[in-house]
């Protein structure tokens, strides 16, 4: 499809349009998806143990509609997904709130920064699977382990980002609001919140990505239910199409959440700053999100 337009001296208008469609950003993305699926199919032909696109689609259909996988095993998509979502939101809420508080304190007070910064850095370096192990050793196999794994992995990312935002508030503005006797609430609403909104979003996005990884690991190692548990269930059963199917589910979930929801929210939160900025962000995100 790339060879045609170059060799022809004067391409017919219809070919020209086709060429235009194929080489447009959207065209390139759609082509990329087709090429990916074709490559996947090719790999399946070479290595028969790898489940192909058709296999995996069939599996996902059965799993989502609750049909029978053969024997007594039935599809349980929504049960596991709902459980994971509940734990994920609760853990995220805890980690995010704690991170926000600690971040603001670190950012605004030099003393707090000196006291707490190193601890946050240490937590930042901690791999998520370590939290999964530790919380399992502490709480056994229960809902607390995944929730706290999410909270612990998300917390330092939020704290670091919010602290950066709070530090970036210019002293001039702070001094001015003191000089003009701007009230505490007003100052919080009009000075601190707008200054750190972007950093909060950045922190939240990091938190969601690392937290999602955390909950999958925790459920993989010590769950009785949830997305991570179900993925492992099929892995242990040597049914790789189930494994690949669930991997696709949790990748699609995080990519959609990050690209389509958070990017859009971020653009909305910043529409006051630069009307064009929002537009650019949106188009960029649509480019990347397809």
């Amino acid at each position, binding site marked *: 499809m790339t060879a045609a337009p170059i060799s022809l001296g004067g391409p017919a208008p219809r070919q020209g349009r086709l060429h235009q469609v194929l*080489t447009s*950003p959207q065209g*390139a*993305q759609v*082509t*990329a*998806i087709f090429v*990916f699926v074709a490559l996947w199919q090719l790999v399946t032909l070479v290595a028969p143990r790898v489940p192909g696109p058709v296999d995996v689609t069939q599996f996902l259909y059965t799993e989502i509609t609750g049909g029978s996988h053969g024997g007594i095993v039935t599809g349980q998509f929504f049960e596991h997904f709902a459980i994971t979502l509940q734990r994920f939101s609760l853990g995220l809420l805890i980690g995010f709130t704690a991170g926000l508080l600690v971040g603001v304190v670190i950012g*605004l*007070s*030099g*003393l707090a920064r*000196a*006291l*707490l*910064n*190193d*601890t946050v*850095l*240490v937590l*930042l*370096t*901690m*791999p*998520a*699977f*370590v939290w999964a*192990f*530790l919380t399992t*050793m*502490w709480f056994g196999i229960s809902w607390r382990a995944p929730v706290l794994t999410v909270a612990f992995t998300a917390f330092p990312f939020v704290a670091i980002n919010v602290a950066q935002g709070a530090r970036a508030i210019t*002293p001039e503005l*702070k*001094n001015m609001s003191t000089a003009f006797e701007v009230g505490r609430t007003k100052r919080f609403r009009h000075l601190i919140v707008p200054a750190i909104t972007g950093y909060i979003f950045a922190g939240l996005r990091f938190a969601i*990505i690392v937290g*999602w*990884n955390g909950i*999958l*690991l925790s459920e*993989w190692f010590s769950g009785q239910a949830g997305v*991570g548990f179900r993925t492992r269930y099929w*892995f242990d059963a040597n049914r*790789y199409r189930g*494994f690949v199917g669930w*991997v696709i589910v*949790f*990748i699609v979930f*995080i*990519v959609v959440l*990050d*690209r389509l929801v958070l990017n859009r929210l971020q653009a909305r939160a910043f529409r006051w700053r630069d009307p064009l900025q929002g537009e650019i962000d949106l188009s960029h995100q649509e*480019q*990347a*999100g*397809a």
Partner: protein
Amino acid sequence: MTNTVAESVSEGTGQALVLRTAAGSRRRRYLAVGLGWLAFLALWWALSAVLGSEARLPSPPRVYREIVTILQGDFWTQFWASIIRVIAGFAAAVLIGTPLGFVMGRSKYWGNFLQAPVVVAGSIPGLTYAVMAFVVFGISFWGPVLAVGLIAMPYVAINVAEGVRGVDRGLIDMSTAYGRNQSQVFRHVVVPSVLPFVFAGVRLSFSLAWKVGTLTEVFGSSKGIGFQIRRNYQLFNMPAVIAWVLLFIVFMLLLERLVLVRIERRLFSWRQWERDQ
């Protein structure tokens, strides 16, 4: 808060007072950092005393003893095993990610074509790569290498693409006008301006890749830090788990602070004049 005070003082008063204030605030900051560590240790100790059991949260001295045992034992063998794999993984990421980034930066079409796959590859949970590496290689040296390579590659590619797009066209045109040939332009203009972006990709993915590397060792390895953490987890040996994790964290922070920052300064040293101006 202390910064603001120091700054407003420095504007109004003499040099001596400023220096004294600066030294004083630095001393105060070190004191606070030390206090922070003490508070951290005290909290840990108090928690371990309340929880009581060694299997839950061992006290700092208990973990310290474990760390000493590990340092006298096979610490370096295990760390070296992990380091080699991570370095090999990064090498693979740079070897594949750099040409990809080049293509993405040079051609609009390939930029659009590869954008989504690379972005998606960058946000795939590490668990996927770790399990995949295990399925492909089993218990082997190459599993962690593959996982580190896969997780770091998108970062390298995206940064290199950014760098290639940012190469000064004017500089290339001028070099061509003065009769430099393609390979000379490549060697002296393109490479120096893209190299820092290759490094930026490595630096950005550094801690993530290390974590995924260790995670892969949890699944399929008979050596390395991840394997040690997992072994002690299965033995329910809490002091050893915490000791290995602490050693890992200290090692990572040192590596980042000492090695990476130094390489970064070196790579960017030719741009020093830019910053001075």
